């Protein structure tokens, strides 16, 4: 891997960044190859006659040993779930702001801490409001 790191990206600029992301790229390629080969394997074996092709209605049914489903798969969910989705997005964005501050905690010092405390306090108003309004309870 070190050899790869040295030779793979010699175009110029900060190569170590691209090399680190290159590992993710290699993982992605392996994942795709694994999935494709796993899907193709039974087809190839069936082609050579190793896997028998004896199909019957029970074998190809969705639940071979279980209850048949009633109604459609698509059901309408309770709209209350959307609240948690929006909360998730809001606190995800909070993470984006916390991360660059946490990486350089010492360098930013007390000033950075004060900025982030105010930032956090403003958002906590929403949390406290949700708590007192009982929005976090499931009714």
């Amino acid at each position, binding site marked *: 891997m070190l050899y790869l790191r040295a030779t*793979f*990206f010699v*175009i*110029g*600029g*900060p190569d*170590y*960044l*691209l090399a680190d*992301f290159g590992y993710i*790229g290699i993982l992605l390629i392996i994942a795709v190859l694994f999935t494709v080969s796993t899907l193709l394997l039974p087809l190839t074996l069936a082609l050579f006659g190793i896997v028998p092709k004896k199909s019957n209605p029970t074998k190809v049914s969705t639940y071979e040993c279980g209850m048949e489903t009633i109604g*459609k*798969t*698509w059901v*309408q*969910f309770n*709209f*209350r*779930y*959307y*609240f948690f*989705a*929006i*909360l*998730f*997005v*809001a606190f*995800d*964005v*909070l*993470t*984006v*702001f916390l*991360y*660059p*501050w946490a*990486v*350089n905690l010492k*360098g*930013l010092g007390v*000033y*950075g801490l004060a*900025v*982030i405390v*105010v*930032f*956090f306090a*403003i*958002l906590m*108003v*929403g*949390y406290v*409001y*949700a708590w007192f*309004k009982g*929005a976090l309870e499931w009714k």
Partner: protein
Amino acid sequence: MFDIIFWVLAAVAVGAALAVVLLRDIFRAALSLVLLFLTVAGIYVTLYADFLAVVQVLIYVGAISILIIVAIMLTREVWHGNPPGRLRIPALIVCLLLAVTLIFTVMSTQWLVSGESPKTPTTMAIGEGLFGRGGFLLPVEITAVLLLAAVLGAIVLIREK
């Protein structure tokens, strides 16, 4: 090397974007949108914007896609899918005009290229810019107010009934 990565990412991005519009199954369209977000993150990586790439994965692939999929789950009679509307042809013409305008602008603009090598890792520099002295103090706090408005809006929405 960069050219190969870029063209692969670009081809996957355009294919995923077309799938979002053309697929009848609205859930598969949402998943294609996730693939599109991922390829955009890959393009950010090739531009040395590592923090932006991670944020793209965290926010768009992680959170926005959840929001879209939950919205699909809340929809009534979702199995009807993505029916073709009467405005298909006008929409196609408008989109083609927009695409031609964008391509023409990109091709005809003289893009200035800085001789300086990109700053990496970018996370520390961004932290310094946001939370350091003389940084973007006010916009950061206004963002907190914006997020607070989103949370309060969500609470008001579910307490409607």
